[in-house]
């Protein structure tokens, strides 16, 4: 340790693995008083894991944590709280039906059995004023906007005298105005000597909020710098990483007719905000169109609009040469559209049902799996055996429940079924996310086979290397808008990285 000042937090050699993934690989982290550290990285880079270790939710496999220079043994969030560490998670931990005040009181250890509401309220009001966190203590949580709920979460930590605040992608759910307010709050906390770790994958926010930035990639620290000494462009490159592309053989690109066309599509997200904003593109037969973007920028909504699971509020959707705007999922399935959904375990596959049932789920309606209203169980099992062999699905038997399969085999099951149903368009959302190398290769290979077989493939991925390797063209999605479409062989990875982070074309030029 060459620092003369004792850092507020020091994490040394933190490693944490989950079955099949090394989420953190000997990560060191330092945080000083009155400092905001931005933790930058792609999804799955290990940012949240590292912070969950700090706040006591995970125990590291290896490594130690020092607070103010002395060893801290953190076993639970309660221990972390003792050391002044608090975290605002992506999904808030508030009780919807209770008031702001009640939520603050919940879990306060020092309060008597009947809490002193008056005193707590007074301190809450004072804190709110001090940190510009305007919120009505009597309002119920469900009545508050997402931004206000976040303020309650922050107040909860401040009330508990947190000195070290961890904010996990705090702006992901905020409007631009609310983000700016948050920036003021963070600034006020800094003035009080508090420190913060700010998890994000947006460059602009790194620049706006942080003093120092640390970039994680695949569980490792790849760069660390003072924010003032770096540029968004440099950060984008460090975040995405430059690795040798591993080429997959594929036939030369010779696109056929348009199989999918979106014209000026708007759609709302689950929270009723605009999730797709005037999206237009064409997908041709024999083409893989990659959709690049950081998760949560409209990918799921786009896939759902194309497959009929979400209504568009404006614009038109054509599949083949038919208008399929806001048609039902079944009508779209009947047009030969297959879909590998983002959420495998609860949407793509049904864990409680057998592998055979899961494989039959698209074709059970007609021959050869059904005769009239009856299913033909023997044919379903035969089909399952054939697909299990063809796609190398590792399962004890066709009757095994899917929930006992590994992630890769669940994905192969979905892939096998969807490929069987695909005749015009294949929509694949993060199909290789979380898979090991072998399963990833199978998935990519199969998508390319589909393309070579004359299907249009809409391929969502967060991994730029993968996108460049698999796609023919790449469209970048940011906050529900298409920021640009590039030919994959001429694409500039840095430019795509910048667009993914919301920097406009002009800024990257």
């Amino acid at each position, binding site marked *: 340790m060459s620092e003369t000042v004792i850092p507020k937090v020091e994490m040394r050699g933190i490693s944490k693995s989950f079955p099949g993934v090394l989420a953190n690989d000997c990560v060191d982290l330092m945080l000083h008083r009155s400092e905001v550290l931005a933790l930058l990285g792609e999804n799955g880079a290990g940012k949240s894991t590292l912070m969950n270790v700090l706040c006591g939710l995970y125990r590291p496999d290896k490594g130690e944590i020092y607070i103010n220079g002395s060893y801290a043994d953190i076993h639970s969030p309660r221990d972390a709280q003792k050391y002044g560490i608090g975290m605002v998670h992506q999904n808030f931990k508030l009780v919807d039906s209770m008031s702001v005040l009640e939520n603050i009181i919940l879990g306060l250890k020092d309060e008597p059995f009947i809490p002193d509401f008056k005193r707590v309220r007074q301190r809450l009001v004072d804190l709110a004023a001090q940190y510009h966190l305007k919120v009505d203590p009597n309002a119920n949580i469900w009545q508050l906007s997402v931004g206000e709920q976040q303020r309650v979460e922050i107040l909860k930590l401040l009330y508990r005298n947190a000195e070290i605040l961890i904010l996990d992608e705090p702006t992901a759910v905020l409007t631009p105005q609310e983000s700016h307010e948050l920036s003021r709050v963070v600034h006020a906390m800094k003035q009080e000597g508090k420190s913060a770790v700010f998890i994000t994958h947006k460059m602009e926010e790194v620049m706006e909020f942080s003093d120092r930035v640390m970039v994680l990639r695949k569980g490792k620290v790849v760069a660390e710098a003072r924010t003032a000494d770096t540029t968004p462009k440099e950060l984008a490159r460090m975040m995405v990483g430059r690795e040798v592309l591993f080429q997959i053989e594929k036939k030369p690109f010779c696109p056929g007719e348009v199989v999918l066309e979106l014209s000026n599509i708007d759609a709302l997200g689950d929270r009723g905000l605009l999730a797709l904003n005037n999206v237009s593109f064409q997908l041709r037969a024999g083409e893989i169109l990659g959709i690049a973007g950081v998760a949560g920028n409209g990918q799921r909504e786009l896939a759902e609009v194309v497959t*009929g*699971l979400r209504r568009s509020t404006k614009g038109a959707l054509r599949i083949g040469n038919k208008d399929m705007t806001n048609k*039902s999922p079944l009508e779209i399935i009947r047009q030969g559209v297959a879909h590998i959904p983002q*959420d495998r375990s609860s949407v793509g596959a*049904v864990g409680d049902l057998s592998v055979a*049932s899961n494989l039959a*789920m698209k074709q059970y309606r007609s021959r050869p799996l059904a005769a009239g*209203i009856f299913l033909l169980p023997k044919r379903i099992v035969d089909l399952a055996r054939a697909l299990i062999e063809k796609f190398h699905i590792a399962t004890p038997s066709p009757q095994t429940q899917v929930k006992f399969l590994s992630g890769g085999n669940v994905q192969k099951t979905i892939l096998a079924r969807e490929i069987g149903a695909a005749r015009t368009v294949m929509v694949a959302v993060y199909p290789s996310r979380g898979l090991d190398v072998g399963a990833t290769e199978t998935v990519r290979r199969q998508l390319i086979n589909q393309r070579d077989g004359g299907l249009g493939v809409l391929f969502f991925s967060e991994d730029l290397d993968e996108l460049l390797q698999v796609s023919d063209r790449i469209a970048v999605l940011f906050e529900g808008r298409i920021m640009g479409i590039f030919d994959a062989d001429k694409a500039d990875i840095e430019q795509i990285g910048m667009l993914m982070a919301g920097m406009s074309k002009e800024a990257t030029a």
Partner: protein
Amino acid sequence: MKFVFEKRKSTSVPALILVPLISFAVSLVLTALLLAIFGADPFKTYAAMAVGAFGTSHGFAETLVKAIPLMMTGLGVAIAFRLKFWNIGAEGQLTLGGVAAAGVALFMERYFPGRSLLFAALFGGLLAGALWAGIPAILKTTLKVDETLVTLMMNYIAILYSEFLYYGPWRDPKGYGFPGSRMFSANAWLPRIMGRAHVGIWVGIALAIILWLVLKRTRWGFELQIIGASQKAARYQGIAVERNIILAVMLSGALCGLAGAFEITGISHRLQQGLSIGYGYTAIIVAWMSQLNPLAVPFVAIALAGLSVGGDQVQMVMGLPAAMGVVMQGLILFPMLAGSLFTEYRFLVVKPEPRAACPEPSQE
């Protein structure tokens, strides 16, 4: 060292057989303790129960009388529960089914000559149950109204409406003030097979088999299976989730309504007090103990009916307090329900693993 319950990876066949047997043994021991406290000989008491419920033709017939409505409502509840639609309105659906059957049998004889009156009455009961269950189903699928409260509250509406009818407009003027309608024509009586037990038992068993076939062997059953496991997945597969839930819940209500129609046409032959005596609630226990499998429902229904009839016998034969029978039923059910935990989970003792030391010091 710590203790954990781990979910079983696959259904263990030995557990499936052993757990209920052990649970039952535990029940018997617990009950025996209680009986001993009251100074009754447990063995004699058990013998009296068994004989009372199954040992005499009268007892067995009474067991069947109770088993039929439990079977029908148990099947109905199981169907709805498979879709995670918590229909606790079986009691009301049964009551209204009985009311409709009685209404048809009492007032529509001229439209349905001869034996057709019976079929019309049964159909009326079935339809009433289906429509009554359809209301919460539609509220749930269109407005996301919680079905538990709606089905429960609708029970009181149905029961009070039936009371209104037999205390009021349908009351038999020659009934000496007894609350009940007049007896309807024998054309609408369900044939009996043994004592008061009627052919409903065969219908119940047949329906259990048909339902099992529908669930396991038809496209619709497959769709219901997917919806029950994950509505999101079902929607993604192009299945019309809402429509199927409404249909399945109406089927659930139809079975309960038919149970009520059986009670009216098979047992009382009039609408009177005693139609709504809790079968629709016990049905929830029947459905759970059957693990929502229609084929298991008849067995569970007969076992529970036997327990109830046997419990009544104990009061009379052994001279125990009236509440004793009910307490015994509870004591027997408890371990059975608790035991089902062990068919789904297994109990493990885990020794703590020694923490691995960090071999590579972090490079500074």
